[in-house]
């Protein structure tokens, strides 16, 4: 049977992708950030997941305002890196796992999570930057990836509680898949940042650190935090943090925190990162 062994969360700042693609990871500005992911690269090389379910948001790349799915699951064989206005990132094409993705989609819908099924979708920095942070620059990504896009661009995004419960439903779906697969769930975006208006540049370390603590130890409490608290305390784009609750919901109530990293700034953003394992 398929099994979820661990969860990873990380920010997905586009400038991080640009630093990787342009060979600037050793520069003084970027070095501390990438040093913070060395341990993570080792961990995932040892963990060797067969499939990553990668929870992220599209940034007006695959979805404009014509169609705004709250939750969309990528069921295609592969997903090309999106051209976000300056050409696609020079990263490998993302290979999907259609059999598992369709199984999850079917089970989620019958579990009353009304997913949008996507058979063609380019994936932007929201999905590819976490892969670059965890795997560096391989010729091909070392595992299959199922994109799970959450709307956080058009307000309101789904509630934290809905995201948390979606994670639980994803776990039920994965664990009913007959093939032996090791699955890791990624929750991405955040942490505190605001990209727009006169309050741009907002960072709130205290909020971020409390979020990390509560997400790990008491996720049901974190799931109750309303949107307005994220916007007020962590910035208009800090609301992306609800996507970390999908990852957390897919894990046991009690988890082992393997690794934590926090760094300010990457461009406009506070970067946070967790690796959590289900007890074995």
């Amino acid at each position, binding site marked *: 049977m398929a099994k979820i062994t661990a969860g990873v969360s990380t920010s997905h700042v586009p400038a991080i992708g640009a630093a990787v693609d342009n060979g600037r990871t050793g520069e003084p500005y970027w070095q501390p950030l990438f040093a913070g992911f060395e341990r993570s690269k080792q961990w995932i090389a040892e963990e060797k997941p067969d499939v990553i379910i990668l929870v992220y948001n599209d940034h007006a790349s695959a979805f404009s305002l014509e169609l705004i799915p709250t939750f969309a699951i990528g069921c295609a064989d592969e997903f090309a890196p999106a051209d976000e206005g300056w050409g696609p990132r020079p990263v490998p094409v993302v290979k999907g796992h259609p059999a598992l993705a369709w199984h999850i989609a079917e089970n989620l819908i019958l579990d009353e999570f009304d997913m949008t099924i996507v058979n063609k979708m380019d994936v932007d920095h929201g999905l590819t930057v976490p892969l670059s942070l965890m795997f560096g620059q391989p010729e091909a990504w070392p595992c299959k990836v199922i994109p799970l896009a959450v709307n956080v661009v058009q*307000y309101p995004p789904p509630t934290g509680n809905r995201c948390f419960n979606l994670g639980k439903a994803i776990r039920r779906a994965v664990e009913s898949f007959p093939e032996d697969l090791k699955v890791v769930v990624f929750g991405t975006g955040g942490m*505190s940042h605001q990209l727009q208006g*006169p309050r741009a*540049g907002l960072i709130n370390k205290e909020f971020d650190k409390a979020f990390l603590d509560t997400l790990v130890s008491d996720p049901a409490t974190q799931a109750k935090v309303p949107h307005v608290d994220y916007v007020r305390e962590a910035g208009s784009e800090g609301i992306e943090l609800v996507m970390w609750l999908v990852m957390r919901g897919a894990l046991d109530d009690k988890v082992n925190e393997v690794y934590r990293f926090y760094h300010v700034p990457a461009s406009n953003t506070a970067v946070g990162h967790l690796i959590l394992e289900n007890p074995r």
Partner: protein
Amino acid sequence: MTEKPYHDIPGTILFDAEQSRLGYHLNMFCMSLMKADNREAFKANERAYLDRFPMTEAQKQSVLDRDWNRMLQLGGNIYFTSKIAATDGLSFQQIAAMMSGVTQAEYAEMMLKGGRSVEGNRSKKEKNRG
């Protein structure tokens, strides 16, 4: 306009239903800049290119003026308006500096020092108390 709990957050316009309805054509113009041919056409004659879209005159003017905050007030969403910035060769950090009314050097320095503090920036009331 229905009063929302987030309206008292200073310097912030949430892209809610109201803004989305207001800004649909402005944002779809921005979306068109994802294609290289369209970027060239826009750069060749901005006014003529904008006239292809049923945007309001104020929206068109805000684009011509590169008035990034005004675009947001008129229904623009930052992930869409940033495509104009990309067309201009500007980074997210450069337009963030413009929107917050400081030079890029000042903005970059603020970020290196840990970003804009939330203290005094949680609500308009708090901000006005200074």
